[in-house]
């Protein structure tokens, strides 16, 4: 499958938006991890902005930057949102209420607990009727999500916004499902490159397991292992390098190969 990347976003520790992250990934700037502070979700009305949590704010910040860079209308673009953990804080809070005598489940938290909540807020923020799917694919959420987004882009012959994002889970589940760091990335994929396109991606799926590329510097490789969405870091680095190359990503089962060609 061939798609073109028309817009990108990255938010993670010491990676504040694509222009900054690209400089770090190119080695032009040292990586200085710091708490992630994403821009506010200004697309949402005040009520909704109050109701949504940090996961939704992260997803919306990623989606906004990628769409702005691609020059696409947020209200028109199909979406593929991928996250392993979803809103772990909301789920933990509900589970705590359920296991506490007399505990009450908050109605707002219950509707925020659906895995497609960030996608829902994104469409509310832009009064969008465009379809969005929410995927949850554990450690492989970035790779499975990319495979899905690229297929949708090709088959529907339409731009697709792909957003991958994850946060650590607080509470008891977080003791067994360990995720470090806030991390997310987003791509606007288009079937045919337009002016300003970043690169093309030729994406294939191979049945066997192939060792992942380890071209990332050790610290960033550690970051890539610490958060499911950061599984995209090797691809992001290849894109930032401006060079042709092939990136291997473990998926379930098998391997995804993305051949990157700068535009």
């Amino acid at each position, binding site marked *: 499958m061939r798609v073109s990347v028309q817009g990108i976003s990255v938010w993670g520790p010491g990676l504040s938006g694509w222009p900054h992250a690209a400089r770090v990934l190119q080695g032009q700037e040292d990586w200085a991890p710091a708490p992630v502070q994403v821009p506010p979700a200004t697309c949402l009305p005040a009520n909704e902005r109050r109701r949504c949590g940090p996961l939704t704010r992260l997803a919306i910040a990623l989606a906004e930057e990628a769409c702005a860079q691609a020059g696409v209308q947020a209200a028109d673009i199909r979406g593929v949102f991928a996250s392993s953990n979803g809103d772990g804080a909301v789920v933990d809070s509900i589970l705590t209420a359920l296991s506490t005598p007399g505990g009450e*489940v908050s109605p707002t938290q219950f509707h925020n607990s659906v895995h497609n909540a960030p996608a829902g807020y994104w469409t509310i923020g832009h009064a969008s009727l465009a379809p969005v799917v*929410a995927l949850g694919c554990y450690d492989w959420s970035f790779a499975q999500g990319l495979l899905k987004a690229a297929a949708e882009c090709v088959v529907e012959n339409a731009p697709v916004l792909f957003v991958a994002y994850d946060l650590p889970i607080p509470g008891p589940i977080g003791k067994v499902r360990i995720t470090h760091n806030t991390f997310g990335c987003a791509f606007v994929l288009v079937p045919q490159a337009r002016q300003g396109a970043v690169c093309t991606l030729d994406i294939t799926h191979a049945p066997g397991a192939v060792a992942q590329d380890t071209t990332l510097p050790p610290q960033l490789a550690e970051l890539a292992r610490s958060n499911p969405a950061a599984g995209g870091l090797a691809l992001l680095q290849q894109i930032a390098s401006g060079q042709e190359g092939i990136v291997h990503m473990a998926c379930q089962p098998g391997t995804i190969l993305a051949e990157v060609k700068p535009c």
Partner: protein
Amino acid sequence: MKPLAITAGTVLSAIGRGLAATEDALLARRSGLTPCDFAGIKTGYVGCVPQAGTHVLEGVAPGFTCRNNQLADMACAQDGFAQAVQSARQFYGAYRIAVVLGTSTSGILSAEDAYEALDPVTGAPPPEFDQAHTQDLFSLPRFVAARLGLEGPILSVSNACASSSRAFVDARHWLEAGLCDAVVVGGADSLCRMTLRGFAALGLVSAEPTRPCDAQRTGISVGEGAGFVLLEREGARSGAEVMGRWVGYGVSSDGHHMSSPDPLARGAVAAMREALERAGLDASQLDYINLHGTGTVVNDAMEDHAVHTLFGRSVPCSSTKGWTGHTLGASGIIEAMFALVMMRAGFAPGCLNVQQIDPTFNSHVLTDTLHKPVQRVMSNAFGFGGTNCSLIFEGV
């Protein structure tokens, strides 16, 4: 769209195990709803699958055991589904068959049980809690792929109550992109404290068995279940018997509110209209619409408005939630299988528990069984977050 063939399928819900039991219950207008008595919760009625909690999984790692996978495993064993998948596997190869499944809460009941048994000192869940293979959303397709011996790419779709409807669309994208030759599509959702208490907190659980489209309806009955189809290109595999065709779909968002549908029904109308366009059909060519029809005041009013906008009173419609309860993320696949059952047997069921159709409704709501040839069915699913999916199936 080019239709895709359904070459195997099965369904499990409170009304029965498998296609024959489901057909019997639909024709006999026999509901599966019973007073709720689940994990200490006694609010309203539920559509509970008997023996789900004690069913033993077949031939996979024991870590996968949770109520959601137990439902999925029970479904795999019905209607010759697992055998049909094995035939396809021999023909295409295991790595050419994908698994794309929808679930809203996966095995969260296992996490709820773990929270009841936390270590008092460390706050850690008990060691037997296997989060990745139970609560995690990816547990379901990982389990089903292992259970059926499939090695194609797998996907977990979680669009709330539209999850397993939307899974058809994602499966088609992988199939048409050439990533696979066949897909196991469907899903499962299972009773848990979170949905029972959560819907109650929103004031959406009916004290009586749910009565979609009734003037006095007061909410949903929560249900559970699972279902699967095997989807492939028609004619690609000789000997594959076609039990139905999937001919159209529309997907959209409301962009309106997290848990209330858009009263103007713009997203629902867009999804249904797109489904007709992709199927190349006029509104008059549908024989029946299986409504999302949850039994809440706002959903049913919105959906009536949407259906009337596109179809007037020309196409009979009803909700089957009075039989199964609202099976949430599984409702799409369960009602897709109901559509196949109705087309094979030639009937459309009327809503259960209706004393008086909401007088503000304008669409053609059925309240009793209509016996007639049924060739094409539209099946709707809408979910929290404002996610809409409309599918059209055709009989053989």
